[in-house]
């Protein structure tokens, strides 16, 4: 890893500290220390999406593709943002052009003009891998190339995946795809390389509206865990019995 984060951290400890920064708590840990601390503590990663604060800017998608080296022009993506427009005639118009990578800057949906006065409600729903407790995708992998780690994240072994596509078929959420250059199955892993160093996932870091947050369900003092435990949250498609671990605030009946 050529990144100079560790150098920065060293300097930061000895040098000037900007105490007003919200992430300053992490500055005192070196990468190794953070990793060790996470390995020792019991961890169950989960995610909280607040659909009421998402503005559909798509900067999470852009950050995700860059951070995780998913070819930028390819239509596949590890996370995406869906737009829902429910009109007065009871119809639901849904779109997610390029996964919402370029945001939603036009009010047309698939070239269809929708009269603003005819809209009952409209909102954005970010989607990502649910890191299920009972991941159907893992169950069906014929070679053990995808698996659940002890902290609940489902990873894919790029050296061992045969590319049969069974996991893609098995996921009810459609989060998996074939990586355009690696030629193996791929999906969101909550930026495992970041969260295991004590950082936030790229999409969380780049969200300006707090619509995406990472939680450690094993830590009762985690502020996001507190929200998941105390507020009314929902999950997507629980009828499949996969026990998804991405929780949503303000999830609407129209959301698919």
């Amino acid at each position, binding site marked *: 890893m050529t990144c100079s984060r560790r150098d920065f951290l060293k300097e930061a400890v000895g040098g000037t500290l900007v105490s007003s920064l919200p992430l300053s708590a992490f500055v005192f840990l070196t990468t190794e220390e953070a990793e060790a601390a996470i390995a020792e503590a019991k961890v169950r990663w989960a995610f909280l999406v607040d659909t009421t604060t998402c503005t559909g800017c798509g900067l999470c998608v852009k950050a995700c593709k860059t951070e995780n080296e998913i070819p930028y022009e*390819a239509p596949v993506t590890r996370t995406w943002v869906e737009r829902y427009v429910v009109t007065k005639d009871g119809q639901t118009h849904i779109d997610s052009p390029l996964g919402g990578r370029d945001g939603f800057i036009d009010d047309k949906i698939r070239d269809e003009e929708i009269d603003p006065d005819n809209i009952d409600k409209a909102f954005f729903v970010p989607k990502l891998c649910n890191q299920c407790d009972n991941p159907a995708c893992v169950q069906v992998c014929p070679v053990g190339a995808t698996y659940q780690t002890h902290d609940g994240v489902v990873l894919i072994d790029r050296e061992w995946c*045969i*590319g049969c*596509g069974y996991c*893609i078929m098995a996921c009810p959420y459609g989060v*998996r795809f074939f990586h355009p250059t690696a030629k193996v199955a791929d999906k969101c892993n909550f930026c495992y390389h970041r969260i295991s160093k004590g950082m936030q996932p790229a999409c969380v870091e780049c969200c300006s509206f707090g619509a995406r947050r990472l939680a450690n369900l094993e830590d009762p003092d985690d502020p996001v865990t507190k929200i998941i435990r105390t507020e009314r949250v929902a999950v997507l498609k629980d009828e499949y019995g996969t026990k998804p671990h991405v929780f949503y605030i303000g999830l609407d009946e129209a959301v698919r």
Partner: protein
Amino acid sequence: MNEDVIVHGVEWTVKELFVYPNEFIYWSIQIVMYPYMTGLVAGAFVLSSLYHVFGKKELKEIAQFSLVFSLALLPVAALPLLLHLQQPLRAMEPLLTPHFTSAIAAFGIVFTAYGLIVLSEIWFVYRQYFVEQVYALKSEPGFANTLKRSVYRVLTIGAYDVSAGAVKVDKKAAKILAAIGIPVACFLHGYAGFIFGSVKANALWMSPLMPVIFIMSAVVSGIALCMLTYIIIMEWQAFWQRRRGGALAASEIKGAEVDVISSATRYLLGFLVAAISLELLDLIFRGYTAMKSWDILRSVMYGKDFMNIFVLQYTLGNLVPFVLLILPGRTMKRTVLALLLVLFGVFMMRWNVVIGGQAFSLSFSGYMHYEIPIIPHSMETFKEGLFGALTVIATPFVLFWVINQFVPSLRRNVEEN
């Protein structure tokens, strides 16, 4: 977009309304071919077993042929999977680290076991012939014969005992293997149905009936293909021999035998009825229970795929051949037409399951259309296109020709063995 950036599925998927960004038709023509070819293998084997195990004497001639033909089909059942894999060089991994909670993990093991059973059975049926050939070719001159003889020597695996007792043991062993082979063949194909039936994310596939439906239609297609190939080869041979002036015995010129075909037809019709009943039961049940997914399923079945399902599969592929076979005064030509339609019908059934299951989005809010690549312009569009499928269809016939050079499955009046 960069040259080596290939998004699998973009070439042939057309999306309509809202489809999740990562959804494409990932399982295309080769995955249609896979259950189709495995079905033919299983069906061919079951047909041969009807003679070997249940002593259906009237099926003796077609049984010899269908046993060898099922061997020729066997590698071709794995070929579509190999062509479909994104990492074909890792194809051995299911045997190295099988993850048995996956239906696909069993493929390598069941496939290998089944292959060994078929090979052993053929060995027992033809061992006497191999030994005879080794002796017969001993005095023949020429490099080709020497080579052929050494192939036969290998094929005997060193067992040259052709005494009456030994041959009797052979026969018994073949019968036992055929009996073991039936459940294995059904398992080989039934679990292909399980691969689809167990995908809970897919509203069309998820059904406990899927494995049984697959076995039934597999036997239908297997019997149909064996009958068809048998008729064509026999008629062609007879035609050829008549042209040469009947130098051979009269019994050699008779072509396909009517009673062989009529009795095979009875089994075909029986399995066809079972297959259709189960499929209709599945359809009725989905409509009656009308779960959340029924809205989109109905719009696919009765709308977008109506032609494929009800016209091509049920009418042209099932109903028409059923009538053609059951009406009195059946001729060989009519039988051939009916068999072709049956094969087409089973293919359409596979198509409607595999492609139809991906015709709608997991969001239940959009559709995907499969546009099969005709003219290949890359390895990907060849493998997952029309020519890839044609390669898969052609291979068993080439293999059969090769195998038949050493194992005369079409020989008439074989000594009682």
